[in-house]
């Protein structure tokens, strides 16, 4: 099976978020970048497991500049066979999905796996857009995936429960918790990653539909109102009369 895993880069969760240029740009100075957790823990690891049990190849794909290469090497160290970087700015989910669809159209991938969302722009869009552009079945927020002779058996989250469904390959699946367990790259993997192919391909020139005009930070919380534990009932009173939430 030929699996494509879409990998994005994201600021480490503990990063301080600072904006510059009059609050129009995310200031990357001193920010540690990681592989977007859902892409790494769930999409990539499940792809590797499927390859280990059924054979095939796992290709990772990132749309982005040369600054994506360290996180791509990490994905190779975890076990992907090869990498493709579409050399492009990343402007919005439509543009990223169009670039990925352009690569996918000229390669016969059986499965396209993604994370359920990026932790920076929290779009949850790219997977569905690829499916829309390619007319492939789409299953989002999948927590389980098995493949039996060209049919994917998938469990997905839905309001109030989960749903088991089947989709014919090729299909696009966005992966959430439950899919797989995180793998830490070992020394051998890290060494091997250095010589695995990382092919840079030109952008197809897709355009964006949206733009971020400005960023704001949340208002600083006023300090917490502490209530004496002896008088816990007062809390309920405040929630009723002051905060008016109950």
């Amino acid at each position, binding site marked *: 099976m030929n699996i494509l895993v879409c990998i994005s880069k994201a600021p480490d969760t503990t990063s301080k978020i600072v904006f510059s240029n009059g609050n129009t740009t995310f200031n990357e100075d001193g920010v540690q970048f990681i592989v977007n957790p859902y892409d790494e823990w769930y999409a990539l690891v499940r792809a590797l497991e499927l390859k280990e049990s059924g054979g095939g190849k796992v290709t990772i794909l990132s749309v982005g500049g040369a600054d994506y290469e360290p996180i791509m090497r990490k994905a190779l160290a975890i076990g992907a066979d090869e990498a493709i970087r579409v050399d492009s700015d990343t402007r919005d989910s439509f543009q990223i999905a169009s670039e990925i669809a352009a690569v996918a159209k000229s390669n016969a991938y059986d499965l396209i796996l993604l994370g359920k969302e990026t932790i920076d*722009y929290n779009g949850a869009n790219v997977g569905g857009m690829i499916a829309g552009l390619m007319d492939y079945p789409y299953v989002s927020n999948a927590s389980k995936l098995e493949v039996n002779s060209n049919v994917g058996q998938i469990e997905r989250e839905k309001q109030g429960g989960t749903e088991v469904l089947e989709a014919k390959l090729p299909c696009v699946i966005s992966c959430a918790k439950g899919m797989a367990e995180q793998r830490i790259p070992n020394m051998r993997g890290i060494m091997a990653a250095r010589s695995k192919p990382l092919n840079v391909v030109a952008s197809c020139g897709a355009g964006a539909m949206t733009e*971020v005009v400005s*960023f704001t930070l949340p208002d600083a*919380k006023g300090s917490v109102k502490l209530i004496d534990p002896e008088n*816990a009932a007062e*809390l309920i009173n405040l929630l009723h009369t002051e905060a008016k939430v109950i």
Partner: protein
Amino acid sequence: MNVLVFADSHDGMIAKSAFEAVTYGSKIAKDSGGSAAVLTYGTISSDSLNELASYGITNVLHCSQLTDMDPQQLARLLAAASGDQQSELIVFSHDYTGKSVAPISAARLNAGIVSGAIDYPETSAGFTVKKAVFSGKAFAQVKINSDVKVVSLLPNSVGKTKTEGTANVTEFNPDCGAPSVVVKEQKSKGGEGISLTEADLVVSAGRGLKGPENWGMIEELATELGAATACSRPVADIGWRPHHEHVGQTGIAIRPNLYIAVGISGAIQHLAGVNGSKVIVVVNTDPEAPFFKAADYGIVGDAFVVVPKLIEAVKALKIAQG
């Protein structure tokens, strides 16, 4: 502008979050001099369909031929409806169905999308919508430049407002193509609990509770308040609580009116899932717990002493209210 709202349903009733999306869509249509319509699908009671009228909707398109959530078929349905209604803006709820159908629809309609919008658009210079980014640590104003626009609204962002009116419900069953997925089985989470993503009030607990046997008081407090229950990630990982209750960066993100966190330290990854809550209450023995910095109200104290008192106080309040 003409607005089309996609409304999901559960158990034969229009979903609660859908009424909020409908409120949102009908206000935008009204303010801009356009018309608003709703598209929905599946088996839905006519009472529930008619209820859409009380949220400012005159035109309801109901597709009864589709019953499974097949995102490709639903995106085709939506494209047909948006052509029919000459829609310029499509509104979804940013829930599981919205996350599946909205991006495919955007690709089909060649539309820019803002997912997880938390406020009405700003239309003085183009069409700009606010959303939370960096897992709730910041907000972005995102401008949509395409002719057709898609917005998915984060539940509990603008609330729902009732008006008067009658709806005109029409069956709408265009060709939606062959199914792309086949639903084999539905597993409900069990229990009669309130759905966490839609809950107005949430009581949540973490490792400070010491063991699963101590959740009785958390459930009781939630029941008394009419709240849903949630938990921190380690608690779900060790199996004290089911995974679907886990909130945070790797779990689900919620924005209730009230979030009560008991015995949770308030790690940044936990806060990422709850910092959109309107009022946060923290109960923790450690005055240095980081959660207090994000809280509106706090009690530095032992959960095993404080929670029973809170339960009594809620019962007393209910009695006082009659």
